[in-house]
């Protein structure tokens, strides 16, 4: 019997792949109250169980698959899954967040999370069903791409309704940024979780369950969910995302001139209309799709039905496919981008790092730093779509030049003495946008606890917050001034704690933080979210306490990285952003200024209660949060 009145399954599955032992441990109430779920569980467990300087590809690394308390309930878009480990790409904390149907099914199978350690002596997969788990041989699955792996597993287990988190050939070959794919659709893309699976000889995790996820107060739950849904119904973002998916951001990047095109040498793209959200919808969209319980439905299902790449069926593409596979290598053929995205999904490679690595190589080739011989005789120039497709496969199998590409831009930079052209923070490539004209975005990317990531914070607040709201929440009206840097460090820090919350709950941010109204960020994001949490679990939690859970988790992640050697020096954007001006677009002439950035970072550390010189959390800060 679960000690929880609802939400939680109450059990964490511990699997030792070395000796094959499997243990079910109860989820402690105190742990749930402090860390809530999802990224909270994974970050805390990684902090507790890993030693400093653990080799991420060694048996001692942990792979953690975590759901949140709301997964499995009819909470809107409670579909997200966290997969975490120490990253083989960055050497610091790594985690991914993906949608679909896996995390609800994990809850129905009776578990809140799975913690895997060790290394199996031969390929295996984990089969979890209704409270029971077993390791089964996977030699016959080894070598297969994602779709085929899923198909074979469903056939073997005799059930089409199982849900699968798998790695592809890239993971088997320990490509540093190999990803995990859930149900062949949702990528747990970044940080190389697939490589960790490969290093453990773990091909896949399959789950199936028929158990209830309890709801402590159904009447209160329904009221909260209905109120929550109403805030999404009127939301303009809901319509935009449904119509064009995340690819709607293509036009935004072009209008603001913040592309990182040609490996961050250009801020605008000629021919961008060919790869806009409208273009993809017009040419390839079969239908829109929604993750579990989602009313936004931003997923695309696309098909190429004519031309050299027909037939190709894939979920996507996302903006974060078009950016690294289009903008970065400067390719404006949408069929090539979609095909490249499909290949990344099938081989199990993070398209963000793949595109970034190939784009970096393109720049090095054009500058003569890489010779044609070194790149397997391929004319590796920007715009060469065939080269992109060619090297994606080579990366997956570590063949030829693909072997170096498979290391990611940081190691490529080190090996080729060309680290200036490696555009990453802490080893994770800059995604989303070029922040040279938007310093608060630069800060957000640079301080993120998994390396450069736009999802760890929410710096867009200053685009719509009103002066009186800014004064009330951040102590100064300047936060509502887009041009001012005053108060922005504080704003970013607040946004990071706040945006951690959906990652704990298992809820998708597109059904949570999309708004152009700051009061709505508080109403939906904190108040209603907390109301749903309390109605589901019956646990005592206020919205202030929930916010502090976000802060607590963020600090644990920072501690993990500090233990691995991160200091203030790691929290800086790449040199290129300080040394080169944007050459074109509305932001032409912009670049980051060192003194300004230092000021921002100082303010950020102060707001966080971290030491300004080292970036290390102060003991008082940790004491208040009850960490470690």
């Amino acid at each position, binding site marked *: 019997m679960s000690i929880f009145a609802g939400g939680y399954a109450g059990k964490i599955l511990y699997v030792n792949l070395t000796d094959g032992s499997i243990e079910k441990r109860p989820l402690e109430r105190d742990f749930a109250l402090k860390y809530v779920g999802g990224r909270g569980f994974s970050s805390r467990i990684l902090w507790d169980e890993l030693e400093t300087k653990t080799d991420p590809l060694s048996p001692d690394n942990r792979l953690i698959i975590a759901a949140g308390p709301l997964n499995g309930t009819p909470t809107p878009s409670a579909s997200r899954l966290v997969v975490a480990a120490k990253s083989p790409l960055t050497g610091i904390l790594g985690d991914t967040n993906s949608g679909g149907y896996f995390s609800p099914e994990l809850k129905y199978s009776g578990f809140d999370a799975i913690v895997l350690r060790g290394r199996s002596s031969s390929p295996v997969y984990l089969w979890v069903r*209704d409270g029971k788990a077993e390791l089964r041989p996977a030699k016959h699955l080894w070598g297969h791409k994602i779709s085929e792996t899923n198909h074979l597993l469903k056939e073997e287990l005799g*059930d*089409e*309704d199982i849900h699968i988190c798998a790695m592809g050939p890239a993971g088997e070959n320990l490509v540093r940024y190999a990803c995990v794919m859930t149900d062949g659709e949702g990528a747990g893309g970044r940080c190389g979780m697939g490589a960790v699976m490969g290093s453990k000889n773990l091909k896949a995790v399959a789950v199936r369950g*028929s158990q209830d996820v309890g709801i402590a107060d159904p009447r209160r739950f329904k009221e909260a969910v209905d109120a929550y849904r109403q805030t999404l119904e009127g939301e303009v973002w809901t319509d935009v995302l449904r119509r064009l998916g995340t690819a709607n951001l293509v036009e935004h990047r072009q209008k603001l001139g913040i592309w990182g095109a040609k490996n961050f040498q250009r801020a605008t793209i000629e021919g961008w209309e060919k790869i806009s959200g409208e273009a993809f919808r017009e040419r390839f969209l079969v239908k829109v799709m929604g993750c579990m319980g989602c009313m936004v439905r931003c997923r695309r299902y696309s098909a190429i039905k004519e031309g050299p790449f027909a037939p190709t069926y894939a979920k996507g593409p996302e903006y974060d496919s078009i950016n690294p596979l289009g903008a970065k290598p400067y390719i404006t053929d949408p069929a090539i981008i979609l095909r490249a995205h499909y290949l990344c999904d099938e081989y199990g490679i993070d398209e963000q790092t793949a595109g970034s690595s190939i784009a970096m190589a393109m720049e090095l080739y054009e500058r003569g730093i890489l010779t044609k011989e070194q790149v397997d005789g391929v004319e590796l120039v920007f715009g060469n779509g065939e080269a992109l497709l060619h090297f994606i496969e080579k990366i997956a199998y570590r063949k030829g030049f693909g072997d170096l590409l498979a290391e990611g831009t940081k190691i490529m930079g080190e090996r080729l003495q060309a680290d200036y052209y490696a555009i990453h923070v802490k080893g994770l490539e800059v995604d989303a946008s070029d922040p040279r004209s938007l310093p608060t975005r630069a800060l957000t990317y640079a301080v993120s606890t998994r390396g450069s990531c736009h999802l760890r914070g929410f710096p867009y607040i200053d685009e719509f917050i009103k002066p009186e709201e800014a004064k009330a929440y951040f102590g100064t009206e300047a936060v509502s001034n887009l041009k001012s840097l005053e108060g922005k460090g504080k704003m970013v820090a607040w946004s990071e704690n706040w945006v951690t919350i959906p990652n704990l709950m298992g809820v998708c941010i597109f059904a949570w933080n999309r708004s152009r109204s700051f009061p709505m960020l508080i109403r939906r994001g904190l108040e209603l979210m907390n109301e749903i949490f309390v109605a589901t679990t019956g646990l005592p939690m206020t919205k202030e306490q929930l916010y502090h859970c976000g802060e607590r988790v963020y600090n644990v992640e920072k501690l993990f990285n500090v233990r691995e050697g991160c200091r203030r020096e790691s929290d800086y954007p790449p040199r290129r952003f300080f040394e080169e001006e944007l050459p074109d677009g509305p932001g032409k002439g912009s670049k980051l200024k060192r003194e300004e950035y230092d000021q921002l970072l100082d303010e950020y550390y102060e707001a966080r209660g971290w030491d300004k010189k080292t970036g290390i959390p102060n003991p008082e800060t940790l004491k208040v949060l009850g960490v470690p």
Partner: protein
Amino acid sequence: MERKIFFHPERCLACLSCMLACQMKSMGISEVRSLSGEQRPAPRMSITFDRGTPWIWVCQQCLSAPCVEACVSGSLRREDGGKKIFHNSENCVGCGSCVLVCPYGAFHYDEQEKRVVKCNLCLEEAVPPCVRACQTQALAYQEANSFAGEKKKKFAQDMRRDRAADR
């Protein structure tokens, strides 16, 4: 979720291979040629016809089985965490109460042994011999909701074929 025997009447040829396989199993015979014209044991499964459509009589493993309630000797028991109904014919006294209450004719009276017999799903086998013997896969050894799911899938496929013209 436990498996039991489901039936696809549209596939049934009424060849009675299932009945024969059941009897052979209870006689311990694996070769059909070993059978002669001798008397055979009461079958745990049989075929009936309803307006021209064949249907099988076999224990449905009811979750709230009336037979377990009615049994006076305790030879009918819930096993396996309550999910299967096991009839221990050794303890059966042949009172016939189960025969009266079962809606599915699952119980047959064995004249020689003076007790009833019922399908116990041949749990020592991976798949019951009757299901294996059926040449048209009219018998399915399946979980209830998996069986329903397949029917749903077939219906969805029919609907898709129907709408192919709209594509």
